[in-house]
């Protein structure tokens, strides 16, 4: 961030020699200027969709490892379905749905509703639980 906007740092140091009110004004002006000019707010990481730590526990609890390989989930070494190690980098889910967080959540909750006949069963995962699972999978390195 700093590297991108060196002039911001300079003006900041100038502002700091004045009174606190001036400093506040300068800062707010400065920040808004920097924001609009140089760094649009980055999109939220897909992993922010839920609680990854809880998702990790849920992936083990629902025994997703009976079919999938999932890094660092106990006993998840199966080849029945695809490995989920690189899910965050995949373009498609189940070979046909664009890999978007909410799509993944819908898929985990009820795969049969999206792709009737797929071998993956609905496991009774609630949408919130699916969000946590998605957070863990998207957060994988």
């Amino acid at each position, binding site marked *: 961030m700093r590297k991108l906007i060196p002039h911001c740092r300079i003006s900041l140091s100038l502002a700091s020699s004045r009174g606190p009110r001036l400093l506040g004004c300068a800062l707010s002006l400065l920040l808004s200027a920097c924001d609009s000019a140089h760094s649009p707010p980055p999109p939220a990481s897909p992993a922010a969709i839920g609680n990854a730590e809880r998702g990790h526990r849920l992936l083990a*609890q*629902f*025994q*997703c*490892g*009976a*079919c999938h390989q999932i890094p660092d989930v106990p*006993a998840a*070494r*199966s*080849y*029945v*379905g695809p490995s989920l190690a690189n899910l965050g980098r995949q373009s498609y889910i189940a070979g046909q749905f664009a890999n978007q967080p909410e799509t993944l959540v819908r898929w985990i909750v009820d795969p049969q509703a999206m792709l009737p*006949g*797929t*071998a993956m*069963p609905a*496991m009774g995962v609630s949408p919130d639980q699916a969000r946590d699972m998605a957070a863990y999978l998207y957060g994988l390195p």
Partner: protein
Amino acid sequence: MSADFRQSALHPAGPDAAIIHNLSWLLIIGATVILLGMMVLLALALRRKKSGAPVRPLRWLVGGGVVLPLVVLTALLAWSTLRSAHLTRPSSQHAVKIAVTAKMWWWEVRYTDPASGRDIVLANEIRMPAGQSVYLGLSSDDVIHSFWVPALAGKVDMLPGRLHGMTVRADQPGIYRGQCAEYCGEQHARMALHVVVQTPEEFNAWLANQSKAAVTPTGALALRGRDAFVAQRCMACHAVRGVADEATLGPDLTHVGSRLYLGAGTLRNSPGAMAGWIADPHASKPGVRMPAAGDLDSATLAAITAYLEQLQ
């Protein structure tokens, strides 16, 4: 759905396990006290290396090498003999008798139907009434295994061609995990079983249900599953009473849907785990005798899964 059930000799749930628990703690504490004593002596010896009276080796040799072990081991022998006398003696004179036959790598469990006198064949899960002594007839079909449910009793080997009796009692309802305690091959580690202790009423109701033949499925999917089960020749190894009775190579599946686990403790029983297991059991339990279903389309897999899960 809770985590795995407790398998611990430090949390005894029956009288025999309690005796073993006492003995274990006596040995652990005794050995620690002796070790600490030795270390203190060593420290003292190192400190007085330069000055003080000369060490008299004979006294230490006779005292520490003969008298101390003699006293300690004699006392230990007397105490453990006394305590072991209270361990349950195997007796087949109990109302509930269960035959457990170890196989590579699962457990066949047989009850006698109190109504008809016929065998009820089950697998990988033993149920017993709380507070009642139960007789277990332990044997093996192939190699040497060992029956060990740490919360209930000590180990008893299971040898091919021999029958070892064992009487166990669990005081409280609960679920206790056990596992093979004699290395028996590739999947020795995933040869577990669960002992479910219930109130006598629950136990009797459970046994009465297990004695029944498989229910005829009501749903269309499960019905399709039953046909696929036969068409895929699953019953070459698995019996489902009322559908195909003969096979004994693999676990009897008449009431598989009512079990806690699949694959002898490998996966908790759920539709997803069941489907994954059928599609490729080797992915979860490499080396298991059951082959992977190479040519099952997903609809057939779902149908067979639905059929097996409703076999309660």
